[in-house]
């Protein structure tokens, strides 16, 4: 299988879907002539022309709202937010209009729109550009939220997202764009709402998603090698719909749970997971669920300190060892 970057995997998914369905239009700031702020859409304008790959002004409320309106008429816009952090200026469009219009119309309308872009810290761009809003988005019934960690997952999930008839918010990661992974040349789809066990283990379950999957896998390797601990890493891939069954199966196997997420702790995705695990698998747990989150403050600029504010392999390792020590 060819080894390609996460960035290329997203690009290939876009290209294949533009080619497959005349209604798919890629839009966003700098996606066409500039070839993408993060080069995700590089070459798409040259290949598909300005009707299918469209540069927008810096006007998120306007163009995201426009995409939602167009989707009501059957267009399938794939809108790029240069950073998901900019969702705040289009909040009303995303979470009042896209999320609610089906419900408020009694099911007469649906919005087959995808909004995608990076949502992560770690690039020293400060608090305004480092938001991870998957919990905020997923708090709105009517929307779907996907956070892929690998090139393979990004491609298969994005193709499914574009074909989905509900609004799908697809959260990528600038720190992952250059990460390579094996991606088959033949077409494949990954259904939304299906978790993936990225590493099998028996002593501890780490539930995670996005870039934190990589940190967790790195920590798991050390835990096995240096501490003789067998760690299972469950990558959620999709936040809503949520594959809680795969999580519960793993919990029943390991009886210990560590959640690792690049979220602020208050009302995070992990908080929701913790509720569900204790509610549905209380007797399987040997001890309290622990979690590693972003340290609870706005994203700090200072480069070496930001690394410590975010989940990283060392923080995961430390938390895992504390958890195991507390349940022995």
């Amino acid at each position, binding site marked *: 299988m060819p080894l390609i970057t996460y960035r290329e995997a997203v690009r290939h998914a876009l290209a294949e879907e533009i080619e497959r369905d005349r209604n798919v239009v890629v839009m966003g700031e700098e996606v066409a002539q500039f070839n993408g702020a993060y080069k995700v859409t590089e070459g798409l304008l040259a290949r598909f022309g300005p009707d299918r790959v469209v540069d927008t002004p810096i006007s998120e409320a306007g163009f995201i709202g426009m*995409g939602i309106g167009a989707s009501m008429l059957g267009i399938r816009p794939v809108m790029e937010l240069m950073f998901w952090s900019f969702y705040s200026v289009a909040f009303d469009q995303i979470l009042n209009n896209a999320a609610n219009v089906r419900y*408020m119309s009694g099911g*007469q309308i649906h919005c087959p729109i995808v909004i995608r872009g990076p949502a992560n810290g770690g690039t020293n761009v400060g608090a305004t550009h480092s938001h991870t809003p998957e919990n905020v988005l997923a708090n709105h019934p009517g929307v779907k939220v996907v956070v892929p960690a690998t090139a393979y997952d990004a491609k298969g999930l994005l193709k499914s997202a574009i074909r989905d008839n509900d609004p799908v918010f697809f959260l990528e990661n600038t720190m992952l764009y250059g990460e390579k992974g094996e991606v088959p040349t033949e077409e494949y789809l990954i*259904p939304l709402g*299906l978790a993936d066990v990225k590493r099998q283990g028996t002593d501890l379950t780490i539930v995670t998603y996005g870039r934190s999957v990589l940190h967790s896998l790195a920590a798991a390797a050390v835990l096995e090698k240096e501490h003789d601990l067998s760690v299972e890493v469950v990558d959620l891939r999709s936040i809503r719909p949520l594959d809680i069954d795969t999580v519960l199966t793993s919990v029943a196997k390991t009886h210990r749970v560590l959640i690792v997420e690049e979220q602020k702790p208050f009302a995070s995705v992990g908080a929701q997971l913790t509720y569900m695990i204790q509610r549905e698998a209380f007797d399987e747990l040997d001890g309290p669920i622990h979690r590693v989150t972003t340290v609870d403050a706005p994203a700090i600029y200072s480069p070496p300190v930001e690394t410590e504010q975010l989940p990283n392999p060392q923080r995961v390792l430390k938390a895992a060892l504390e958890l195991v020590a507390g349940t022995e």
Partner: protein
Amino acid sequence: MSKKSTASAEKKAESAPAATDYSRVAVNSRLSREEKIELHRKMVRIRRFEERSLRAYQAKKIGGFLHLYIGQEAVAVGCCSLMGPNDHVITAYRDHGHAIAVGMDLNPLMAELYGKATGCSKGKGGSMHYFDPSRNFWGGHGIVGGQIPLGVGLAYGIKYKGLKGAAMAFMGDGAVNQGAVHEAYNLAALWKLPVVFVIENNGYSMGTSQARSSAGELAKRAEGYDMPWGQCNGHDLYEVRACMDKYLTLAREKHQPSTVEIDTYRYRGHSVADPDNTYRSKQEIEEYRRTKDPIQVFQQELLAEGVLDEATIEKIDAQARAEADTAADFAEASPFPTTDDIQKDVYWEADNPAERKSKGRLFFD
């Protein structure tokens, strides 16, 4: 009348040319007798529906807000009467008039107000959220100005599909100060999208007069985006049609967006929760009712044309009252949605399980 006193309104009065007879404009002169009566009937049906819904509200049959369209009937009826098969409409929360104007039946509209399962949105949307995509009516939106980018999206869809049509994106005069409206203006003008932005200027954004909320002339802001703009008298249905026909044609034929400000007036408060005793005088309202009522104005016109007679007018009114009463009876007799219905119509996939592709839980407890 002290509702608005913009410079241009005064200027217009000074240099008023010979008044145009809008009945002779092609879009009106070609109307058949039956079509004219139908336009009149639609306005009367809106008014009687609104009056009946107010009574239902006072009888506590309706919850939440109720933003009545009484006084503005000629705007929605005039604009929507020009719709072709590829024309689309979206509006804000004062949406009953548009819903009736595009042809929705009164029964599901009233049932929606009553929160019943037979409502046009199954009792899930309420007064502010009427929809009927089968009639190219895309709501009914609650956030001031938030629907305007969606309207531009409708225009984008029309153009992308190569259809000859236009979107009408309605807003109140209060919406012009929202950022989303200006972003929508820019996109429409930049990309030549077939949309007419319609400002229904009733003079008050809730309880704040135009003079206290908006700098400059409202429609003129379109100039900043190189869009043509117009203003017309929304108390005269013929004038509304004449004006809108021009801008809809520009949109359909040349993908030229525009902004049209239609001068109108609401007789009731912003919503029924507005006691309407702080920001305008009873005399002002009375003056509008007496001299500018859109139904009376058009009725007089049709009487003069010999299209209507007193007996027909009375019959239309009696029918409209009966229809509104029937709608209220229908709403009253209809069942409420059940708690099982709460989680339906949230996800397309959940409502179409046979075609569901995703896995996992969509709903949480």
